[in-house]
């Protein structure tokens, strides 16, 4: 029997939840293309709301496409970190991280010290949140026009904007 991507990922991460959304619940139940469930995407959108001013409806397709390109190891790091963060969110606010307001989310990340640590794929929860969630969401947005228009850049490095972005006349 051929395993779906979700089944493969579950095999890699196990199904522990530590009181928050389990990795099982963070992984998509219906498709093997988009690895995250709606709850998983909600968590990333909360991160995006904290770190970037673009509107959620503009951000979601960018984040969704980015996560869809990640390899299994990266998805594993992302969902295990998000699961742990969700458990902290429930402890602090009695709600899933994906349901927090921007102010609440910002307070939680600050409480964890995410803005005071180096980004590391394997490390403390704060270091991993910065690597797998904050910097990954920022990377997705800052390599896509949606996230760089505020810099006056329509074809950022990392985005396949093609020749039309580089012509003699604006």
């Amino acid at each position, binding site marked *: 029997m051929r395993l779906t991507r979700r089944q493969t990922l579950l095999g890699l991460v196990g199904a522990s939840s530590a009181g928050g959304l389990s990795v099982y619940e963070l992984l998509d139940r219906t498709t093997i293309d988009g690895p995250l469930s709606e709850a998983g995407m909600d968590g990333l959108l909360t991160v995006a709301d904290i770190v*970037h*001013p673009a509107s959620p409806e503009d951000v979601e397709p960018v984040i969704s496409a980015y996560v869809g390109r990640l390899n299994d190891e990266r998805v594993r790091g992302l969902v295990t970190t998000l699961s742990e963060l969700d458990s902290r969110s429930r402890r602090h606010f009695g709600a899933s991280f994906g349901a927090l307001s921007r102010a609440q989310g910002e307070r939680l990340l600050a409480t964890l010290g995410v803005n005071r640590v180096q980004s590391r794929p394997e490390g403390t929860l704060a270091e991993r949140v910065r690597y797998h969630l904050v910097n990954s969401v920022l990377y997705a947005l*800052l390599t896509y026009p949606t996230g760089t228009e505020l810099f006056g850049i329509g*074809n*950022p490095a990392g985005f396949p904007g093609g*020749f039309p972005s580089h012509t003699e*006349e604006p």
Partner: protein
Amino acid sequence: MSADDGRPTQVDRSPSPRADVCVVGAGVAGGLVAHSLATTGLDVVVLEAGPRFEFDSRIERMERALRPDKDHQSVWDMGGERDEFTSSGPWYYGLNGTRVKGVGGTTLHWSGYTPRFHEKDFEMRSRYGLASDWPLEYSDLQSYYADAETELGVAGAADDPFAPPREQELPLPPFPTGPADSLYVEACSDLGITLHSAPQARNSEAYDGRSPCVGYGTCIPVCPSGAKYSGDVHVRKAEEAGARVVDRAPVQSLEHDDAGETVEAAVYNTPDATGLRQEARYFVLAGGAVEIPRLLLSSTSETYPDGLANSSGLVGNYFMEHPMVSIRGTIPKPDGQEPTFWWPLESNQFYDHEDATPGSIKLEFKQESPTEPTDALSGFDSPAGDLADPLAGDDLSVEDDPEWDTWQLWINALVEQLPRERNRVALDESKTDDHGNPVPDVSLHVGEREVETLRHAVDIGTRILESAGATDIEVTDPENPNSSSHHMGTTRMGEDPTESVVNPQLRTHDLDNLFVSSSSVFVTGGAMNPTLTIAALSLRLADHIAGLE
């Protein structure tokens, strides 16, 4: 399981029966030789020290390149015990930032520029009384240059008035210029400096089954679309023509026959075995100007206690680079300007020279945003400071930040470095790699002639930027130049076995069936990016070996 994750695989890496040709190294040189010879029906085995990289991994590798929280050498999995080295000269040489080990080789992270050498590059002794002449002339390579341009897919126009004679148009049209390029054109015109297109092995339109450039803007160090040529293209073609390519098979030594006249086997290790012997009738070393001398010096025997093909004592000597200075200035951001990487303009006006000094200069005209959006990932340690706070939210807005209203003009000047015996690749016996072998020790000095040429380049570049209206002009130090990641020399070509390592047919003087396909055979290095000359020499060598049959 991927082939590049550091773990053993189930791939069969055992030796083939005695092959016609064993190629050591699967970069552009090895790929072209293997493809050409396999196409003629010869039985070819390629041994590559590094892994195969899955094409689909390039998007992830691009992220490693752009994210400041990633180690850039991780883009192509360089570093660690496998790639230990020493830099013992006064010019520190960060070797692992200048090369890639794996199928495709260093062209996986090259810029893609593909100029031909000029006639003078082959005649430095005759013209200027400097260094040595090549035993070849430009005309001996001219048709191979054309073939190489076709094989690699070179884009550009025949508009370089300083270029050597050519026989046909380049296969692809030039890349478009942009607003900042126009500033260069005006400024140079005012100074009487001629700009022209920069030939580059990057698809300006679909070519050879590969897509046109889509502008990811990360050519160095990775092209996710495959529009930029890399050596894996011809390695793949070689396999389709019947060659066998064995990855993760670093060759440890070469064994010769009792008479010391021919090489009998390349001895290699794999993740699962050691001391495997690949026998062949001919051997072609194509691992670059650092690993080739390292392998020869490591292949000692009673007959050759100083290493194989080293009766001249010159293996490893005359290592050359292209010392480089950068001249940068700030301008208001031109309307419509976007980040790009296919910098389409260069000038070779200062390449051919009457007097011996200053030497050849190649000018490359680039431009970029002074700040990249992804700098924001660096956090508070970044110069982007306030922008970078990951919790910035709405404060990420930069509408009032003057930094984003500026642009940088940026001229790179590559100059010629003469071959000197003291600039060399040797073995550092005090340090070993993951197989217990002594690591390469690169020793480089920058000579007075190079410094004088770099200063001349700084003067030219500064005048151009001033003419373009740039402010805050900064230059890098000519006495402590950047490197261009161009490894040349170390097994130089020549007629005299006491003065060179390989003959004009690229066969080692000492062993009848051992050939070298690499910039290691360059006698002098000019100031031109070396890859097209490597490719032309590789195609010529393949013709020669095929003709021995």
